[in-house]
């Protein structure tokens, strides 16, 4: 019986020799390796917080080397190494950054990916409540949203049960945090301490499973995640004095564990693409440990339609907080630091209201035979009255060079997330990229 299972997992005896198609996709077998990459320069200017003058938010040059090496017929290895140099102390960081480095191994129906990697789940646009494995740096200034993702060490296995049904399993042995969208130097009365990382123990590792069914009519996935939420919550760390004897409140980012059951799907209805994503989040003792997000439901439904060169993507994003209670008033002078931090955490996790509704629209156009792409991402939160506009124009001057121009306009009322990130993110950017 065991032998039968192994024969099934290893796949059929190769009936199909490697053809032209596969050879073209695997030049590593003839050359041993393939090297690609890019060089880009990025300038991002925006309004200085609290002043009506403009300042450099980000200025850096980055080189990326992407190396793929062959490991015979059973696999390959991939490295994405980036070198960055720019303004001192920038959020993007200077120096070398090993973004991804992993090995792929394939044994018939089973495949494995081991190493630092980026694993993206979910079929919705921008908001993916089922995507909880990969941490992000939302403050990273780049026109390419993928640059905001941070690689993490994972063991990933995929089993093709049938041509249309597959099972993914991910083990996350080490926690890696997402970057909180706050300016830690903004208020001298607050001292941001280092993140209280969970100890390196097996019990602190995370795991996730995803069952994917992809049929011609559409695709659907069921997922389960049990691990640390990439965004840590904040916790009161006490009161201390700085070097000049001024008192300040110590705040520590503290990661917390959660379980997320998810479902995502996509299909075509006539001329419309239809996508959706639903997630139920479970956390325990969230009232006692206020760094933790509250249990809740997150859901996204979107439609897209193409008219010639134009594409429109309309999406609804909703949050529902289970076991909801009113948050403290952050403007109450009597509010304790703990209540204020609790407020911040609920703002971060979009849980200030029991139910919140957000609508986003992404119209885009492709002109000059695909050489010029323009899009505007806009979203409005009907509950918190926050909005975001993100226009972007990209011109492919040649097959190797691309210029990107765009900007961010975050806006929100006082004590909202977008009001807080506004000074960090609002601005105009220009990027020049050469790919090789």
């Amino acid at each position, binding site marked *: 019986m065991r032998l039968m299972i192994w024969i099934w997992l290893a796949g059929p005896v190769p009936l199909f020799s490697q053809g*032209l198609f596969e050879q073209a996709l695997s030049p590593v077998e003839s050359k041993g390796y393939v090297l*690609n990459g890019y060089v880009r320069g990025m300038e991002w200017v925006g309004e200085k917080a609290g002043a009506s003058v403009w300042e450099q938010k980000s200025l850096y040059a980055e080189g990326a080397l992407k190396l793929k090496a062959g490991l015979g017929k059973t696999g390959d290895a991939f490295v994405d190494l980036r070198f960055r140099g720019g303004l001192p102390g920038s959020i993007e960081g200077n120096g070398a950054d090993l973004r991804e480095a992993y090995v792929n191994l394939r044994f018939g129906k089973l495949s494995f990916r081991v190493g630092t990697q980026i694993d993206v789940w979910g079929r919705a646009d921008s908001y993916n409540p089922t995507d909880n494995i990969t941490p992000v740096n939302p403050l990273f200034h780049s026109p390419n949203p993928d640059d905001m993702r941070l690689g993490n060490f994972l063991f990933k296995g995929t089993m*093709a049960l049938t041509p249309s049904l597959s099972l993914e399993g991910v083990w996350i042995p080490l926690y890696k945090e997402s970057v909180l969208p706050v300016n830690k130097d903004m208020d001298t009365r607050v001292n941001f301490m280092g993140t209280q990382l969970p100890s390196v123990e097996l019990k602190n590792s995370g795991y996730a499973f995803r069952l994917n069914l992809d049929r011609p009519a559409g695709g659907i996935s069921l997922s389960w995640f049990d691990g640390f939420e990439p965004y840590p919550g904040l916790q009161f760390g006490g009161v201390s004095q700085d070097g000049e004897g001024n008192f300040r409140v110590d705040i520590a980012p503290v990661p917390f564990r959660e379980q997320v059951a998810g479902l995502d799907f996509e299909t075509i209805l006539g001329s419309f693409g239809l996508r959706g994503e639903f997630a139920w989040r479970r956390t325990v003792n969230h009232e006692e440990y206020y760094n933790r997000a509250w249990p809740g439901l997150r859901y996204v439904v979107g439609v897209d339609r193409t008219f010639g060169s134009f594409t429109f993507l309309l999406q609804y994003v909703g949050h529902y907080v289970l076991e909801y209670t009113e948050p403290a008033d952050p403007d109450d002078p009597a509010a304790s630091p703990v209540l204020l931090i609790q407020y911040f955490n609920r703002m971060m996790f979009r849980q200030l209201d029991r139910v919140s509704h957000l609508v986003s629209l992404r119209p885009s156009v492709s002109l000059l*035979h*695909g*050489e010029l792409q323009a899009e505007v991402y806009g979203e409005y939160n009907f509950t918190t009255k926050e909005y975001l506009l993100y226009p972007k124009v990209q011109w492919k001057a040649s*097959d*190797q060079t691309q210029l990107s121009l765009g900007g961010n306009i975050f806006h929100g009322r006082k004590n909202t997330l977008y009001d807080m990130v506004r000074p960090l993110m609002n601005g105009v950017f220009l990027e020049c990229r050469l790919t090789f």
Partner: protein
Amino acid sequence: MKKLNYWITGVACLFLMEMPVHAQDGISAKKIMQKSRDVSKMPGMESVTLLRIVDAKGRERIRKITMASRDEGNVEKRIIKFLEPADVKGTGLLVFDYEDKNDEMWLYLPALRKTRKIVSSEKGRNFMGSEFSNADMAAPNLPDFMLKRLPDEKTGGVDCYKVEMTPRSEALAREYAFAKKIVWIGKKDLVMRKAVYYDRDGEIYKVLTAGDVVELDPVHKRYIAREMTMVNKLNGRKSYIKMLQVQYNSQVNPEYFTLTYLQK
């Protein structure tokens, strides 16, 4: 006598005008197009193709793709992966081309790390920024067109059947992005050698020529044109497709045509 001759000639002309053109050899336009579609269908094929796009100012863009196709009766499955340029390398398209219903299409974008199921009705959209349309990359869906046979004509020194294809509705004309198309089909190999596209004003706006025809499957008499050129008369752009390598393979691995492979 002279009057009688005029009368006879006139009646004969009227008769010829009324007589279906296909009567000259008994082959209808539909049959020619169906046979042409059949000879282009392979049980399986793999290729590496170069696409060269030249704009009116002579600036050139190069795309290199690899493709595999597999005929499974009522559906022809195709997978296309970009090899060059570097910024789109890894982008993939999976198409299930059905004879009796709309195609199913998935697009994998490495920059997003996601596969998207996309609507396939945009047959008239340009293929990879070239003057070719998505519809030019597949055998025509014959029920979408009214077919009319025109007098035979030589093109490029090859004896050809000539067929006029008119989309059956305004909606289909919009979808295919032409009002009329005239195609030249080689009499010997039934491979399309030339096509002229007309816009709504009846003006020629694109001309396609095909060459380097080879017999890919001698057993089933399957032929393919390894080179195609499309010239846009309105904007002066030209696009060239050249199959650098092509392989007939009736045993194409079915695993290529899965989302797992598309994302590989």
